[in-house]
C-alpha cells in the first residue's frame, strides 16, 4: 500500500526525521532520539504532527441522537465546547475505535478517530445512519493537526502563537479566531464550504501532560508548525515518544489495548461507557460483561529485570501455563523500570499476583501492578 503523507511531510524530512509507516501514513518516528523527545514533553514542551488522525463532522437535527447511538460516553446536556473520550462498539461489545467527540454547537459534533481506522470507522458510522436526519462530513483530508504538549505548552501557545488558551479548561475546545498567519492563495476547502474557517483548539492530548491540540487547514497547520519550531521553545517530537508517553500514563492504543476482540470492560475503560444511557450500540453486551465478568482483563505488569516485554510476548503462571499476552511494553523512560500492559485471564488479574513474562528464550518474573506507571500532570 502506498502510504499517505501529511501536510508536514517535507518539513519532517528537512528536519532529518526518521520516517516510517504508521496507520497508512508515512510519519516521523523521531527527530533526535525517543528519550530526548520524551523528556522534552515531560519537562518542557514538544510539538507533534498528528495530522494522520481522522476527523468527521456530524450536524443536523438528529446529530446528538446519532452520536448517543454510536458512542459509549454520554453527551446529553453537554455545554458547547465540551469534549468526551469514549468508544464506538460492535453489538458484541468489541471495539470499533476509541475517539474524542467535541460538541461544537447544538447538534454539531466533531469526531476525532484513529488514523489506522479511518476507512473502517467511516464505513461503519455510515452504516448506522439510517433513521437519523444528519449530515455526515468526512473531513480527514481537509484537517491537519498539531499537538503541543508539556508543562510549558500553555506559555508556548499563548506567547509564540498569540492564541488565548489560559482560560480553556481540560477537555474543552474552542473555534479558533482566524489568526493572521497561514494565508494562502490556494486554500484547501472544508467540505462544509468555505476556506480557512473551521480551525479548532482544544486542551487535550495523548501524553499525560498539559497540552493543546490544534486542528486546521493544511496551510494553517504548516504555518503554525513553522512558528513553533522557529521559536526554539518547542521540540519537534515523533510518534516514537508519543507511544512511550501515552503508555507510561496508561492510555490505551487501538490495536494494542483495544480491538474488535477487546471490549472497554476488558480494557478497564468502563468509566467511559455510560450504561445508564438509554441506548448505544454494544450496550447490552457491556451490561452482560459487567454482570457476569469477562474472561480476560488488561493489567499492568512490572518486571524485576531490565529485559523488555514487547507486544505479543506470552504471559505465564509461575508454573508455566500461558494465561495471556503483552499488549505494549517498554523500559519506562520516566521511571526507569521494565513494564508492560497485558491482556490476561481474569483470575490472575489481581494486583500483586506473581507471574512470568516470556522474553525470547527466557522467562522473567513480574508482578501485577496498576497500569499507570507514571502520574498524569493535567491542568484541570
Amino acid at each position, binding site marked *: 500500500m502506498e502510504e499517505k503523507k501529511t501536510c508536514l511531510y517535507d518539513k519532517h524530512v528537512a528536519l532529518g526525521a526518521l520516517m516510517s509507516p504508521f496507520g497508512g501514513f508515512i510519519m516521523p518516528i523521531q527527530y533526535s532520539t525517543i528519550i530526548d523527545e520524551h523528556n522534552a514533553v515531560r519537562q518542557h514542551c514538544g510539538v507533534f504532527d498528528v495530522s494522520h488522525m481522522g476527523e468527521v463532522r456530524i450536524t443536523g437535527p438528529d446529530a446528538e441522537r446519532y452520536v448517543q447511538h454510536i458512542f459509549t460516553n454520554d453527551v446529553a446536556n453537554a455545554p458547547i465546547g465540551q469534549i468526551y473520550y469514549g468508544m464506538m462498539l460492535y453489538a458484541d461489545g468489541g471495539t470499533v475505535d476509541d475517539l474524542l467527540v467535541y460538541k461544537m454547537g447544538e447538534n454539531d459534533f466533531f469526531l476525532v478517530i484513529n488514523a489506522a481506522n479511518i476507512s473502517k470507522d467511516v464505513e461503519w458510522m455510515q452504516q448506522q445512519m439510517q433513521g437519523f436526519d444528519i449530515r455526515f462530513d468526512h473531513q480527514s483530508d481537509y484537517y491537519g493537526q498539531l499537538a503541543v504538549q508539556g508543562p510549558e505548552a500553555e506559555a508556548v501557545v499563548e506567547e509564540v502563537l498569540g492564541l488565548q488558551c489560559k482560560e480553556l479548561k481540560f477537555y474543552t475546545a474552542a473555534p479558533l479566531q482566524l489568526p493572521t498567519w497561514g494565508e494562502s492563495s490556494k486554500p484547501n476547502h472544508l467540505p462544509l464550504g468555505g476556506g480557512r474557517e473551521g480551525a479548532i483548539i482544544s486542551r487535550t492530548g495523548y501524553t499525560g501532560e498539559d497540552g493543546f491540540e490544534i486542528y486546521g487547514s493544511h496551510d494553517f497547520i504548516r504555518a503554525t508548525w513553522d512558528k513553533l519550531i522557529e521559536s526554539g521553545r518547542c521540540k519537534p517530537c515523533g510518534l516514537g515518544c508519543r507511544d512511550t508517553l501515552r503508555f507510561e500514563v496508561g492510555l490505551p492504543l487501538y490495536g494494542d489495548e483495544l480491538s474488535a476482540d477487546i471490549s472497554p470492560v476488558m480494557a478497564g475503560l468502563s468509566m467511559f461507557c455510560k450504561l445508564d444511557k438509554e441506548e448505544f450500540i454494544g450496550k447490552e453486551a457491556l451490561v452482560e460483561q459487567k454482570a457476569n465478568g469477562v474472561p480476560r482483563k488488561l493489567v499492568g505488569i512490572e518486571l524485576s529485570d*531490565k529485559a523488555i516485554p514487547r507486544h505479543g510476548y506470552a504471559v505465564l503462571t509461575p508454573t508455566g501455563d500461558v494465561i495471556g499476552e503483552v499488549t505494549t511494553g517498554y523500559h519506562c*523512560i520516566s521511571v526507569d523500570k521494565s513494564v508492560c500492559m497485558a491482556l490476561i485471564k481474569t483470575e490472575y488479574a489481581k494486583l500483586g499476583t506473581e507471574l512470568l513474562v516470556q522474553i525470547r528464550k527466557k522467562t522473567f518474573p513480574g508482578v501485577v501492578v496498576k497500569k499507570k506507571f507514571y502520574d498524569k500532570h493535567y491542568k484541570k
Partner: protein
Amino acid sequence: MAHFEAGLYYSESHEYVRVDGEYGYIGISDYAQHALGNVVYVDMPEVDDEVTAGEEFGAVESVKAASDLIAPVSGTVVEVNEALEDEPELLNKDAFANWIIKVQLSDSSELDSLMDVEAYKAHCE
C-alpha cells in the same frame, strides 16, 4: 553520521569482530547503533555458552524494538561486557569501544566470509 572502523570484520547483520589472537570481540557497528536509536537493554549470553556463526546469541533492545544479535563467528564465550548491564547506552556512545562478548574462536576461517570495512561501507549505502 555513522563512522566506520578499519581493521575489523563485519557481517551483513551489522555485527563486527575485532580479532585479537585466538579471541574475537563481537559488537555492533556504529551504523547499527544509529539505526537502532537509544539502546536500553542488551540481552547477552553467559560465559562458557557456545555461539554459532549465523545464529542468534542475544539481542539489543532500543526503546522501540528488539533486534537479534547474530554471531558473525563461532566460538565459546569467555567474557561478556558487564558494563552494558548497567549502561546499555554505552553502545550509542561508542559502539566500537564497547564490545558485547569476547569469544574464543573455534574456526578462524569463518572470518573469510565476513566483510572488510570498505565492503561493509558499501553494504550500508
